[in-house]
């Protein structure tokens, strides 16, 4: 009914954190500019990882919002959600947001967390040149 709103809300919060993190990283980069680049261990900045999460959440929420429009659950006039016109439907909608919506946000965040761990491991792994075949 409106389960995508939970992911959309999380996306807004993550976007704000991402912007803050970008500023912090920019300041840190200026202060650490004297350090030799060769000594710095390669790693993916947190702001970039947060951007992945934002994109997953926003992308999913937009396409799910379209599905809700398709099913007539979201309308272009106030109160925008058809479930809001009836108290029983509103209660059902809130229950769905608390169960399905929260589960969606949790799964996406969990997948993103695993994705970050795998990405960190890949970045630390030395690049191996593919063996050349002898003609």
């Amino acid at each position, binding site marked *: 009914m409106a*389960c*995508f709103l939970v*992911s959309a809300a999380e996306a807004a919060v993550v976007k704000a954190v991402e912007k803050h993190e970008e500023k912090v990283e920019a300041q840190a980069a200026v202060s650490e500019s004297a350090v030799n680049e060769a000594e710095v261990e390669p790693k993916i900045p947190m702001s970039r990882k947060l951007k*992945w999460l934002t*994109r*997953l*959440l*926003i*992308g*999913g*929420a*937009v*396409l*799910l919002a*379209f*599905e809700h429009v*398709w099913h007539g659950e979201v309308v272009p006039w106030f109160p925008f959600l058809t479930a809001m016109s009836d108290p029983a439907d509103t209660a059902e909608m809130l229950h769905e947001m608390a*169960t*399905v919506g929260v*589960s*969606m946000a949790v*799964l*996406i965040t969990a*997948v993103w967390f695993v994705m970050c761990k795998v990405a960190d491991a890949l970045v630390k792994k030395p690049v191996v040149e593919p063996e050349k075949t002898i003609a």
Partner: protein
Amino acid sequence: MTLLITVFAAVIATLTWYNRKNDDLKIEVLCFMYWGASLMWLIDAIFEFAELKADYFAPAAQDMLNDAFLGLAVVALGLVIWVCVLLIKDPKGSVRAALKKSN
């Protein structure tokens, strides 16, 4: 059906991203969008399965057709959003070059 179509779209987008020559086409936008939607519909499917049990796998033909049509519409919307992002961000500078052209 919508979940299946979106998962296929996500896999195709990811393989295209993996084989990319450069980042000019911003394929990652498509990947994140389709994977995000696929994960969300997966949860939807799990909750629906918990409610319907085995009946979940035997949908009515009309429902399946509607879901397939919705899945294709979702893929099309994703592509439209991707093209819009591509034109706005313009990583190759093609749009700017076309606009600056005198004729």
